[in-house]
């Protein structure tokens, strides 16, 4: 690491804060804090929290953006922490003492979340080392095959890196690797009910038998197909079936591994930040804050949870939801009896003195991700209290406007934004389309069209990897028409 270790003063502070965190009941990976100046902070931020990444221009692009925005005073990174054991966290050297205190409290919240939240359970806790390994492997490939070759391939892989199956880590979707010996197709036999001869046409009607036979044949054909069932992990499919050189296979594998590593952070953005904010408010206001630090703390805390009309602040939404859950479970405001109570006043004053709040929030931070969190705990009262709304573009007036304060609508939109990271769901349906070795993908259209220019460019990258023509079936014009976008050696084309 290239940062400085903590000053004695801050090292003492860390011990104190760690003790508070334990007292609060957190269970975290050990945390290593490092001091960075703003340049190194920008570098680490551009590297998505890691001190070393493989060489790629997009990190440089992000670094330039951050540096420019920092020098214009548009942002200031207070805190950064990576999911690793031990947890690495960075402090900006120029921050005040009270800021460092706040950041430390916040970081212990994240570290606890990384360790306990189930969606992080599969992640590599030695990712720091793994990233460094990836970096040195890519460097070696660059030395051997040339910068442009490797970079073009990386670009192609990175442009597909959201085509993973984030739930695959928790379920077994198909039998383990290895192909079985191809059997001769068995003749299709349709089971029929035993029947007396005169009952035969009634118990086993010939048209039904015919239909069954067709279905079975279809299923058998499907099994011979590649993939047998639609595959959401497109990167895995490419790894297994695309004609790649060894170094290309290795790079694609790395990109896929990193995508799976980062996926839970996308799945739990609201919860993760909400939990860390919840923890820092508790630790700071209960124990850590000195009277003379109060104003600065309040200033910075309210900056973090500030509300911007055009977007959801995950810190704010998460924090308020955790507080709401704690309050409701303290009062016992849940369960069928509460749900059925129609008297608003009674609901508001509902108090069964259960005191289960703390226990509940700890449980919630363990087993939910953002989708479940919002679905389960975002109540109508909460949405009203937090003044949530949906907005839309009014093309008539050329501006964004508040379109509704309807609870169901808000929830639906919020959940849609969070599902699959707000990205379209795209699956491999056929790896041997038209028996010509072409790749056929299908976009599961759910009301929103794809960005066509982006899709065409992404297809070009997919074509680079697959080597044979690639097709993407989707719907256009708001889902009314089916279109197939293709890319082959002559360039892009559309069929609709």
């Amino acid at each position, binding site marked *: 690491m*290239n940062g400085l270790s903590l000053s004695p003063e801050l090292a003492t502070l860390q011990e104190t804060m760690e003790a508070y965190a334990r007292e609060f009941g957190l269970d975290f990976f050990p945390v290593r804090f490092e001091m960075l100046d703003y340049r*190194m902070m920008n*570098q680490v931020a*551009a590297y998505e929290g890691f001190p*070393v990444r493989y*060489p*790629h*221009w*997009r990190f*440089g*692009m992000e*670094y*330039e953006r951050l540096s420019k925005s920092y020098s214009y005073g548009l942002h200031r990174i207070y805190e950064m922490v990576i999911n690793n054991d031990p947890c690495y966290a960075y402090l900006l050297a120029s921050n005040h003492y009270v800021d460092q205190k706040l950041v430390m409290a916040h970081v212990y919240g994240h570290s606890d979340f990384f360790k306990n939240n189930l969606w992080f359970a599969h992640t590599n806790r030695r990712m720091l080392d793994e990233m460094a390994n990836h970096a040195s492997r890519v460097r070696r490939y660059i030395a051997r095959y040339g910068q442009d070759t490797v970079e073009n391939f990386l*670009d192609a892989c990175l*442009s597909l*890196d*959201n*085509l993973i199956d984030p739930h695959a880590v928790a379920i077994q979707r198909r039998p383990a690797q290895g192909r079985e010996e191809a059997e001769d197709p068995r003749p299709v036999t349709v089971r029929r009910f035993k029947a007396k001869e005169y009952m035969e046409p009634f118990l086993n009607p010939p048209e039904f038998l015919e239909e069954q036979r067709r279905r079975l044949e279809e299923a058998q054909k499907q099994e011979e197909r590649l993939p047998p069932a639609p595959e959401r992990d497109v990167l895995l499919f490419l790894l297994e079936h695309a004609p790649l050189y060894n170094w290309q296979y290795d790079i694609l594998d790395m990109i896929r591994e990193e995508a799976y590593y980062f996926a839970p952070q996308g799945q739990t953005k609201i919860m993760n930040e909400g939990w860390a904010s919840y923890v820092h408010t508790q630790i700071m206001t209960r124990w850590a804050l000195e009277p003379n630090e109060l104003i600065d703390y309040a200033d910075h805390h309210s900056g973090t949870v500030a*509300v*911007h*009309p*055009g*977007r*959801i*602040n995950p810190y704010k939404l998460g924090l308020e939801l955790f507080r709401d859950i704690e309050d409701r479970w303290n009062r016992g405001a849940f369960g069928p009896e509460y749900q059925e109570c129609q008297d608003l006043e009674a609901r508001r004053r509902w108090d069964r003195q259960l005191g289960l709040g703390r226990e509940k929030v700890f449980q919630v931070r363990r087993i939910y991700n953002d989708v479940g969190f919002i679905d389960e705990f975002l109540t109508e009262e909460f949405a009203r209290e*937090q*003044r*949530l*709304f*949906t*907005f*839309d*573009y009014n093309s008539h*007036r050329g*501006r*964004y*406007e*508040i*379109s*509704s*304060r309807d609870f169901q609508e*808000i929830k639906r*939109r*919020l959940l849609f*934004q969070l599902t699959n990271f*707000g*990205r*379209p769901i*795209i699956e491999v349906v056929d790896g041997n389309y038209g028996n010509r070795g072409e790749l056929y993908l299908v*976009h599961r259209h759910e009301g*929103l*069209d*794809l*960005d*066509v*220019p*982006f*899709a065409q*460019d*992404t297809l070009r990258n997919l074509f680079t990897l697959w080597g044979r023509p690639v097709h993407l079936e989707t719907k256009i014009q708001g889902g009314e028409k089916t279109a197939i976008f293709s890319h082959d050696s002559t360039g892009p084309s559309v069929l609709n």
Partner: protein
Amino acid sequence: MALSIEQDARRFRQIVRGQIKRNLRKYIANRELIGRRGKELVSIPVPQIDLPHFRFGHPRGGVGQGEGEVGAPIGQGQQPGGGDGPAGDQPGEHILEVELTLQELAEILGEELELPRIQPKSKNNVEGSVVRYTGLRRVGPEGLRHFKRTYREALKRQLISGSYDPSNPVIIPIREDKRYRSWRNYPRPESNAVIFYMMDVSGSMTERKKELVRLTAFWIDTWLQAHYRNVTIRYIVHDAAAKEVDAHTFYHIREAGGTRISAAYELCHRIIQQEYSPEEWNLYAFHFSDGENFGNDNRRCLNILAQGLLPAVNLFCYGQVQNVPGHYFIETLSQLKDEKLALANIRVANDIYDAIRIFLGKGY
């Protein structure tokens, strides 16, 4: 300390430059760039840098938080959430704004058009000077004290006088020991340039034609300013008579008279004679017209050029913005054989690329 990410940042800038170079012809014909030019930086929209992903089309809304009735507008001027990254409005383009210095832009222009670097006329009598701290002296402000030399002097003196004790090596400098950095002025030849833009503003010069002139002038400025420390730009408009104007008037004035090009050439020549001696200045003259001149004026123009202007200037360029075929002023000028004279037809915006190559490709 050099950060490892700077390598990535350098690579990124390289890619950006490559993109700009590849699309230079498009940029040159694009009027948008003029408005994006600041004092030192120009902001350039570069397509297709960002990595494409499968994503939803234009995010048209989302969920927000705050006060307001249904129908109230939200946060003017900020990009509402929902999507990530800016969306391009052209098919197949995702656009990224990149800032380049004018110097960099000129370099790209030079590399792509294979323009030779300009060798300024050597002028000994126009000099700037540059201050360098190279010497030492015994007096000076404490801020400039040279610690090492002072220490050495003190050590030397103490050794000679015998007051140096190796077991207790304390060196105390006295006033005579002190040495200060001193500076010298180094003369540096400095070359200055003047650009004359002359334009026909008679009735037949439409807005569209002026736009072509403006675009061409933008790239000429960029190139020449990269080569000279001081560039003065003078603007002359003419119809049947000529007058000097400022830049804004130059591009926006409308006159309705006939055309007598010689008036502009005479005025230009007069200004040069009065204000800029050709020995001291690098002079560039650019004339834009639709080529419709009074027939009996042509001879006069050629005379002024051959006798007065061409001997004085580094380069004289004539750009003809005319898209109706016919016999025009450019034919008249082509009778004149002089290597300082460059002629180009600019019919549409795409011709600017070649015109610049003709004008600046001579390297004067």
